[in-house]
């Protein structure tokens, strides 16, 4: 298994849609073959279409508000001593998280396909909030599937979705979290694929959804590359890019431009949800060595039992609380280009407290997992090491959880 240079990772799959010969694919019911094929052809065409690209760039700039800033966290750096800690403040994007990139692109594609309806899944509520925002902007009717447990714990985003005129469909099956929301959204699409477009909220799902999502979030690292060159005159020699990994869309977007670099120069570190310290449950298929399995149309490392039933997961962060993970991260793990670890609920909370104490930054519980790893390793590293954390979400949505846990 080997990575290719000079080709975006999203395109390094074989003709059956597998990365590294075994991750990804398109395990879908017959009914979805045609809509998936149509979408695949449309995306292939659009990504080469200058007019479409111009449109995308226009909305990225004027609607999403790119580029988001790249800042040094001086106080945190001084407090920890050791490596410099920087943040790419992706939460500045319109709506407060990176999910706006995929949502915007999916709405543009839906328009191009002539679809009037768009549906999507959401865990933390950001994917749903952004899709509802973009749908409103582009005149599409929008339905969001969300686990009942997540509706309770991510209320601010639920309110935002309603304000944007989206219908929220609560999902009561299974663990009532993201995994169930994605299943229900796919079921809805099976039944309505003639007039409805589906947006998958992360780099998961059948091959084409991984590609579209990754293509959209890649904007983050394109910006960062320019920003690095402008701040440091060249790409520095010791960089660590730390990102939380749920499905893996923010991590892929944060890393995509840097995958071709030697890992001695630019290390990629993904941080999964380790769950509560005292619980056996987690949402960390990569770092806790889960076996490969098939979920939501793709093969990936997957929290499951040996009968192939999907395991319950547990995490304080709704956005990371998912048993599978993107096939492209499985590929990055097996080729050893990226390193994956996890942070527990408690570590993420501590990190959130520390970052908000020292900096004018309010990372949500998802990127707080990434900050936990940064805080752990920074003191041991040299001063010329540049740690960059993708602060990909704003903690406003976590108001209730933070109040309950921190008072």
């Amino acid at each position: 298994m080997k990575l290719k240079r000079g080709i975006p990772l999203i395109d390094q799959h074989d003709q059956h849609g597998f990365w590294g010969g075994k991750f990804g694919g398109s395990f879908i019911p017959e009914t979805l073959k045609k809509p998936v094929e149509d979408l695949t052809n449309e995306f292939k065409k659009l990504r080469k279409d200058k007019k479409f690209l111009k449109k995308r760039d226009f909305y990225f700039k004027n609607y999403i508000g790119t580029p988001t800033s790249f800042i040094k966290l001086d106080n945190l750096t001084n407090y920890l001593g050791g490596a410099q800690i920087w943040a790419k403040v992706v939460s500045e994007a319109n709506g407060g998280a990176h999910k706006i990139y995929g949502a915007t692109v999916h709405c543009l594609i839906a328009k191009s396909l002539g679809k009037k309806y768009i549906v999507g899944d959401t865990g933390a509520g950001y994917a749903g909030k952004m899709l509802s925002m973009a749908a409103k902007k582009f005149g599409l009717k929008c339905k969001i599937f969300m686990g009942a447990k997540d509706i309770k714990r991510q209320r601010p985003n639920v309110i935002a979705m309603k304000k944007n005129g989206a219908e929220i469909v609560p999902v009561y099956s299974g663990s009532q979290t993201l995994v169930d929301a994605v299943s229900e959204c796919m079921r809805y699409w099976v039944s309505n694929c003639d007039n409805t477009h589906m947006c998958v909220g992360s780099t998961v799902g059948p091959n084409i959804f991984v590609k579209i999502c990754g293509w959209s979030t890649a904007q983050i690292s394109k910006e960062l590359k320019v920003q690095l060159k402008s701040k440091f005159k060249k790409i520095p020699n010791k960089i660590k890019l730390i990102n939380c990994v749920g499905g893996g869309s923010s991590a892929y977007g944060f890393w995509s431009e840097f995958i071709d670099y030697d890992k001695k120069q630019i290390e990629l570190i993904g941080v999964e949800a380790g769950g509560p310290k005292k619980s056996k449950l987690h949402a960390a298929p990569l770092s806790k060595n889960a076996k490969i399995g098939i979920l939501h149309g793709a093969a990936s490392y997957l929290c499951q039992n040996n009968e192939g039933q999907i395991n319950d997961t547990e995490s304080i962060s709704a956005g990371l609380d998912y048993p599978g993970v993107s096939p492209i991260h499985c590929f990055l793990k097996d080729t050893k280009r990226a390193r994956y670890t996890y942070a527990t609920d408690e570590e993420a909370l501590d990190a959130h407290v520390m970052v908000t104490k020292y900096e004018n930054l309010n990372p949500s519980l998802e990127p707080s997992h990434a900050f936990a790893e940064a805080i752990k390793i920074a003191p041991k590293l040299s001063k010329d090491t540049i740690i960059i954390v993708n602060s990909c979400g704003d903690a406003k949505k976590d108001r209730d959880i933070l109040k309950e846990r921190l008072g």
Partner: protein
Amino acid sequence: MASLLKQAFQNAKSENRPALLTYTVAGDNNKKKSLEILKSISNYADICELGFPHNTPIADGGQIQTSAYRAIKNGIKINDIFSIVKNFKKSKKTKPIILMGYYNMIFQYNENKFITKCKESKVDGLIVVDLPYPENKIFASKCKKNKINYIQLVSPTTSKLRLKKIIKDSHDMIYYISMLSTTGGKLKVSPKKILKEYTKIKNQNKSKNVVIGFGITEKTIKSLKKADGLVVGSAICKEITNSIKKRQNAVINVSNLVKRLKNKIK
């Protein structure tokens, strides 16, 4: 010799009616009961589909989900499913059994081991919901080599060219999904339109047995009588759920339902 599946279709044809296919979930609501249900309904059904329950079934609606969750909760394991089939076949030697489910369970069990077990317990056919053509080519031919029918699905969205290829690669039976829906949806397309699509498939190769499924209930079954076979699933699962709720005998209730279904297509 013709496969048991083929024989079942011929048998129904000789009686001038479509074959009746039932779908129940293995282990619903427990191992013992599901075997009893299976044995009892097979007095009326021509072919029995047995679902292997998955806890994340992306193409199933509420009724089958409920049955699957119930079966898993009551501890059903893949090996139990094979022993249900084995037991069933002891008394019902010529009744074809089709296992139906999601690929991850086969993948975890190991494809080859799964096929061996199917053969040992005399499974006649397999339907894998999320392993479509052409991704299923290798697995399907492995099945065929072991005299297990791999049943291809086609749907209203299947293109003409694709349909041709699928039929060419199919075995004795083809499953036509009546409409854009998960299982358990209400029939939202007119029977006339469904039969028109059905005829298109049939016209490609008359020797293949084409069954129609999804949205078939006591109310709708008669209108689709022209098909080679008709599958009823969610309506049966719902009957089990209702029987449990009302503390009635599920075996009797489900058997009566299947008997009524059969009478409607005679």
